[in-house]
């Protein structure tokens, strides 16, 4: 099986799911704004629903930003290093990102467990168990952690086998410096 392709495609579709959720939220909010200003008395709960959708959409998109190498790294000194040092820094960056994402997922599930135990409901007219949107959000962060861990393992294997250039090409900073753009 072609694991890198599966991860990349999966991450992309997870992000597109997030984007579609944002688009749906935009429609919902717009209708709510119109209803409110027309004094119809109808409320679609766009405020709460959008907040929950936003949290989940972003959580599911973090992994895509990793595969696209969109998470910002300051590369002023990095650019001056030889490739073997850069590739070590690339793996270190991924490893720390993996630890961060795992931590985020862990704390998110703790929040879900806490809400489920208390049977928490949002402090509003929208009556759903808070653990549901939080669970979706935690699931997204778990996806973030899994993808980042997989990419870290792959990069670390390349590094241990001495394939510095491969590590750099696959995971290095996509530079915004002039000569890279000119290529």
């Amino acid at each position: 099986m072609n694991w890198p392709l599966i991860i990349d495609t999966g991450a992309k579709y997870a992000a597109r799911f997030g984007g579609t959720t944002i688009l749906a939220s935009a429609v919902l909010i717009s209708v709510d704004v119109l209803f409110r200003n027309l004094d119809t008395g109808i409320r679609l709960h766009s405020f709460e629903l959008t907040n929950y959708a936003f949290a989940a959409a972003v959580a599911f998109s973090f992994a895509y930003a990793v595969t696209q190498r969109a998470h910002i790294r300051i590369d002023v000194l990095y650019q001056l290093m030889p490739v073997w040092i850069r590739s070590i820094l690339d793996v270190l960056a991924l490893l720390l990102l993996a630890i961060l994402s795992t931590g985020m997922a862990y704390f998110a599930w703790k929040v879900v467990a806490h809400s489920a135990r208390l049977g928490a409901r949002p402090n509003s007219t929208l009556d759903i168990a808070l653990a549901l949107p939080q669970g979706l959000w935690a699931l997204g962060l778990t996806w973030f952690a899994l993808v980042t861990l997989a990419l870290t393992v792959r990069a670390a294997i390349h590094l241990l086998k001495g394939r510095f250039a491969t590590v750099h090409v696959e995971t290095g900073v996509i530079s915004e410096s002039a000569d890279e753009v000119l290529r």
Partner: protein
Amino acid sequence: MIGWATTILLILLSLALPVAVVLVVLGVTLAEVYSFFPLLPAAGEILWSSSTEFVLVAVPMFILMGEILLRSGVAREMYEALDVWVNRIPGGLMHTNIAACTLFSATSGSSVATAATIGTVSIPNMRRLGYSPPLYLGSIAAGGTLGILIPPSINMILFGVLAEVSITQLYLAALIPGLMLAGSFSLAVLVLCLLRPDIDGAATPGTWSQRISALRALMPPIGLFVIVVGSIYAGFATPTEAAALGVLAALLIAALRRGLTLSTLSEALDGTMRTTAMVMLIVLAAFFLNFVMVSIGLTGRITDAMRGLDVTPLTVMLIIVAIYLVLGCFMETLSLMIATTPIVAPIVAALGYDLVWFGVLFMILIEAALITPPIGVNLFVVQSVRTGSHAGPIRDVMIGVTPFLFMMLTIIGVLLAFPALALWLPTLVMR
């Protein structure tokens, strides 16, 4: 404590670790070393509450609006329409560049998007009409930075959320300085072209009937501005709601122009979430760091230290401006902004300055950071759009932005001398 925090921050950043990771590592370290009670257990709640912050939902909405507009072809027609109006002024298309950036900024919340969009439309005309590349490219790179100053602005939303300032007031405050900055850019072009006519290009005068018919092409951007920013100013919608209306309006414009297919919409959605995820990871990390800094009393110590200084608030403000100008040369602007706002905002407030006013000043500093070499994103954007027969050294762009940088510093000085230029409109509307 302050020294340690800064040292850790700089070392980690220089290792090219992801900025979000650096902020969290710093936060965890400070919490472990200086806190009397464990702070980490609160991480989950902070993560959830900042992930569901309604104001932040405006960020993906504005990005999506821009992604849709970018693919709709509105920018090209708008550019051509503005051109027949302003090309008689010495400096010709360079005024069109600035005017188009200004108008596009009124529908876009991003400087990079503005420079890329206008650059793509404008640069093919550069050689054909004989313009000297540096100033021409500079007018696009600098004009593009107006994207974050003229409302709507994504950066101002992030500043507003982190510094706890009203986005509506920020948007009102930025309007006059934004138009002044655009005007000063045009003034710089005019003066330079009168002094050195050889850098100007050939004029392509338009007729009055062309001008009148061109107005039609200006309707989509003006309509969007009225829907998005107008609804905020009128109190009809909150910034997030206005951004949602803007997404639908942009979809409508793209659909009417037959620029909307399922595949372009999918691309727009992917691009939106890629950028949103990148921004949000740093924002969430900054929220966590901010929580730790407030909990261990670091924020209080910094502001106390500032209050204890035996200098005038103006001196401190000038030092802050100088620090940002230097940092802006080397740091990526978004991280610079998000990472430093929680530290700088309390200082500025402690000095007695209005945070709404500072938000506007801050945006101009960030604009300067976008065009100061060696790291200036807008320089790279313009350089990357400049392909084929227009290719040349990036030095051109770096030289070309100098007069505009000078104008930014002038407007910063003017804002320091006359804060009312920013604060008059918010007080007028909010009274």
